[in-house]
């Protein structure tokens, strides 16, 4: 056990080193931006906007995977809840309620996924992929069946969730919530009884079962919670960011969030940091795409690749011997 804790310390030291590297990189980027005449404030705003869905999704998935349930259907949950969020906002005439509808939709899909993987003992990777495929078709069906127009639906201006003006620029309340949620998730996982049970369920479901805790309920609960956070991130995209529900609105964000989770080794606070790096890369690409002097030289299509290339690079460099829960993705069968 002692050897293990030593190893853990080493791993976290390496993580801190990587975080430092990331901070230096970001500082360097700011310097470049200053040189090219981009506004750092608008860049930070863009980065924080792009961070929000990634952070919410990644934090949710951290909780989820800690309990031993791996959901790769995040992309699909983001897609469906974005449309559900817009529908909810129009139904209740209020953007905030729309966000809640999105979160509820995500929670429902997470709940179904939990039931399927706990009671159905499903292959979680296959079931998650099933959610992604389902979402791809279902979202287009929804857009067509509800609004009768293929592929896209614009959100009315009055339904958008307005940003708050702060000293560091405009911030969405969802962004602030995402940052708080990462902290709360950390406290929840490490300081509360239920958090301890979630972590124990991922490590050794047998022991948890013997101790009289219902493994099935813990896993379904954490899957629902993870789905709810992901759903909020999904509804955030049309209602507080893009202003439209589009059939491919998630654009790989579910998988980038998975990369955040892998990078963070299931730690919510590190997942938030990773989400900021990835989100910043995306915000950077948006800013570069419209900068005079740059947009003529670098084709728009290469700028579009920045988030994906960043993800690949960071995952490639930073991946190491991350310790994942022993029972990760393994269905628990009661003897």
């Amino acid at each position, binding site marked *: 056990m002692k050897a293990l804790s030593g190893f853990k310390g080493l791993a976290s030291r390496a993580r801190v080193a990587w975080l430092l590297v990331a901070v230096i990189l970001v500082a360097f980027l700011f310097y470049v931006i200053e040189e090219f005449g981009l506004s750092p404030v608008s860049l930070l705003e863009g980065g924080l906007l792009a961070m929000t869905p990634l952070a919410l999704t990644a934090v949710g998935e951290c909780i989820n995977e800690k309990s031993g349930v791996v959901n790769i259907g995040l992309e699909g949950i983001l897609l469906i809840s974005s449309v559900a969020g817009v529908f909810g906002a129009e139904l209740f005439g209020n953007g905030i309620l729309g966000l809640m509808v999105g979160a509820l939709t995500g929670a429902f899909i997470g709940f179904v996924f939990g039931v399927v993987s706990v009671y159905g003992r499903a292959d979680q990777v296959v079931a998650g992929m099933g959610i992604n495929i389902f979402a*791809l078709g279902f979202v287009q069906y929804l857009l067509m069946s509800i609004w009768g127009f293929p592929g896209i639906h614009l959100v009315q201006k009055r339904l958008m969730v307005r940003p708050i003006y702060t000293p560091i620029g405009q911030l969405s309340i969802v962004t602030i919530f995402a940052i708080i949620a990462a902290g709360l998730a950390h406290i929840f996982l490490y300081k509360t009884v239920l958090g301890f049970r979630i972590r124990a369920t991922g490590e050794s479901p047998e022991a948890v079962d013997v101790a009289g805790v219902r493994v099935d309920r813990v896993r379904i609960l954490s899957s629902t919670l993870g789905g709810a956070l992901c759903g909020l991130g999904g509804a955030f995209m049309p209602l507080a960011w893009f202003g439209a529900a589009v059939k491919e609105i998630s654009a790989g964000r579910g998988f980038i969030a998975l990369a955040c989770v892998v990078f963070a080794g299931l730690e919510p606070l590190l997942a938030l940091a990773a989400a900021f790096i990835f989100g910043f890369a995306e915000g950077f690409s948006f800013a570069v795409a419209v900068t005079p002097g740059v947009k003529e030289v670098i084709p728009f299509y290469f700028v579009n690749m920045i988030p994906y290339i960043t993800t690949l690079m960071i995952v490639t460099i930073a991946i190491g011997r991350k310790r994942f829960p022993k029972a990760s993705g393994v269905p628990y069968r009661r003897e």
Partner: protein
Amino acid sequence: MKRFKISEVHIRPFIQSGVGVLLGLLLGALLMVIFRYDPIIAYYWLFRGAFGSISDIMETLAFATPLMLTALTFAIGVKTGLFNIGAEGQMYLGALGAAAAAGAITLPAGLHVAVATAFGMFLGALWAIPAALLKMWRGVHEVISTIMFNWIAFHFTIYLIIYYFAEPGRAEKTAPALPGARYPILMEGSSLTAVVFVAIAFCIGIYIYLWGTKAGYELRLVGANPDAANYAGVSSRRVMLLSFVLGGLAAGLAGASQIIGRPPAWSLYATLGNVITLGFDGIGVALIGRNHPIGGMFAAVFYGGLRHGSRLMEYRAGVYSELVRAISGLIVVALAIPEIVAIIRRRFKR
């Protein structure tokens, strides 16, 4: 194997797939009822549109051709213990390669088809290699890397089309394949071309390779039991690379089949509109076909039928055609549950 005997082991996959498909269709009907469509009318037109006449069946086969190949990409991955969902990006590159070779150079008629096909497959395999290398060297999980490469391929292919391969004067698509680089159309007025035979031959070839050769056995051994494979001296890294390359060849052929084997476009649109999501659909098809090259062919005909029939369903019953993709996702979720048949049997006995 002494004598071929049909035991329960052989039938079970068919029953499971059948139950999964039925459940998917039932849930799909529920989705129709929620939006006040009539599922019985919709399904009638769906299946009549898919298999109602000879020309419809030909069209269904044309839809099935690329799907059986992208399904093969995923299936080879699963047989080697990999979750390779990169068929989408590899397929884009394959389509681009075929379009470039078929539209930009001139060769004798028969040779030109072969060169365009081979170049598409080559580019597909080439695009699969980085994900394999990242997995081998750094242990990057292929679910993340292949998705990222899919998105990079999406933007990269569009860039190449617009900047280098666009038809002069028309930036929205590549120069069309020269008549000598096209697969012959099998029946006047249908979209089915001889490329379907290439696809079927490729699937059967991979089946023979996996189950009939030593190298194929090593591939499956790594997938079934990595420890045993390691103990037997099989290099799991080499197998991993081989699996990705074979998958890339299949995906590249799938992309090529849509350019030089599918009228009326004979070219690749700059939106990638005529190939997009074929790779993703292949994942569902592979899972319905139990990750088997031959099973994937039957599943591709089924799903190809849904895609073709959905157009008539949309026209006659008003149900938007994309619902069939949602149904295939539901089928996949149902198939992920290993004991679904047992669970249903128990419910009915009660």
